[in-house]
């Protein structure tokens, strides 16, 4: 094996026709439904007196827990935008103001905007995630690129 080549986007990526039929469509529909149901339950959980034991909160967590197992069993992959809205420890569907707090910190002395860091922290106090937001404001996830499908 030689040296590992750098992954560059110089390779020709040209948009072609999307495939006509999706394989494993049933499982994708199921995960989609479970994700939607978990958001509905998380939003309908009582916000005035938030108990950790309210039923809607527990149900939304268990739906996400189910969703993760369906993905593992059916060998399909979730898109990163969905993964980022879910707590990895307590399986909560993260909604800012209800479950999680979102903040931008800057620990550099000069407070240069390059060093801005976005942190999402769950209410369970076990999960915290940092995104270096200042480095590239125009950053796109790889899946969100327009030209994705490769030429044969």
């Amino acid at each position, binding site marked *: 094996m030689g040296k590992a080549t750098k992954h560059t986007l110089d390779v020709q990526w040209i948009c072609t026709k999307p495939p006509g039929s999706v394989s494993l469509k*049933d*499982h994708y*529909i*199921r995960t989609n*439904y*479970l994700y*939607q*149901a978990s958001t*509905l*339950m998380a939003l*309908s959980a009582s916000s005035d007196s*938030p*108990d*950790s*034991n309210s*039923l809607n909160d*527990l*149900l939304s*967590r*268990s*739906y996400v*827990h*189910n969703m993760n*197992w*369906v993905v593992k*069993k*059916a060998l399909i992959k979730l898109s990163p*935008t969905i993964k980022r809205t879910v707590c990895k420890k*307590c*399986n909560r569907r993260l*909604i*800012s*103001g*209800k*479950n*999680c*707090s*979102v*903040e*931008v*910190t*800057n*620990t550099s002395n000069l*407070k240069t*905007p390059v060093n*801005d860091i*976005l942190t999402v922290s769950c*209410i369970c*106090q076990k999960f915290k995630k940092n*995104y270096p*937001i*200042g480095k590239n*404001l125009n*950053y*796109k*996830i790889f899946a*969100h690129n327009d030209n994705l499908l490769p030429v044969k």
Partner: protein
Amino acid sequence: MHTLQTGSVESNGVSSSSSNDANDGGKYNENDPIKKNKYVNWRVGYINPEAFYSKEDQSEEKANKNRNNKQYSEKIQKAQRRNNTRTMLRKYITETMSHQRKMEKKLKTIKRNTKKKYEKKKMQPKMQLELNKIPGFNKIPKFEDYLNLNKMWLSYIIELLNIDKYLSTDGKMAKDGEIDFKNLKFQNLLAKLSSADFNGCLLEVLKSNNKSSINLTGIVLYEFKSHFLMAVPQRFKRFDNLEGESGEEMDLENDFNYTNRELVGGLRLVEKNGSTFRFYVPLNKDENNEFSVLSLGLDNEDVSDREETSQEGATEGAVHYHQSRECLEFVLIGSRLNLRSSDRTNKKFKNHAIDDLVV
């Protein structure tokens, strides 16, 4: 994509900020109670986690701190580690079930006291309670809160079974005359149903070993390995014979005709093993252009109109077509479904050697 949904929540008097303010920094006053960390530029939707958890948990923790027993603290640490989503749901269910039993006892005393008053007057007892105003009833989960989940489930199952073409519009059939169900392959539907998700389905229990759960209808909230967790409506009569002891029709507005358990409603656990379930998939849309729940008092008058399209050889049930209501009827056999819902994704059901196929 590092964009944010800003302006969603204001907490403790701090106004939400747009994403452009991120680089300015230091826009807030220094005396803000939330902005304790000096490195924080801005913050959205902050919740104090200590306020989030209930007071009972905090008091337990304080009590545990006072005890300096090492063994005791280790026990608690182990128990806290086991606080999964699964275990916490189980804990919640046992608490609410015991709470429901307390409420049943409360109703029992109310009924007894009112009955004495009517006996003095030598009249038949009559009463209509406002259940939600009785203290303690707010804790019991209600059936009506989960109707939106059932609407979502119906749109899911129609998308999964791929029966959009058979849907009728404006109360009339899509095609002239009857629907051609010859093209619809039921065995394909059953294979899809074996890997479907039943959270949010409105199920009716046809048969079970436990007599108290026969003819229950409710929305499935969660599917365990061997049980369905259902939310059951208040004041729902389970049996069709609405005749009293004297042969007259039962007065449904009188609370004395219900048992205490029917009045309370709430959560029920129904065992899968040895029980059969039924659910409908409607082919009609509502006035609001939505798939609504069928009427709860599912009448059994139209049994004669039912046509059995495929009966034998079904993996987990038989399919009927309900002519009068324009909906598909499915019957699940619970003892076949005795698996975890996530384990059913790649499971293939076999047709041979079925002992329980008696619908």
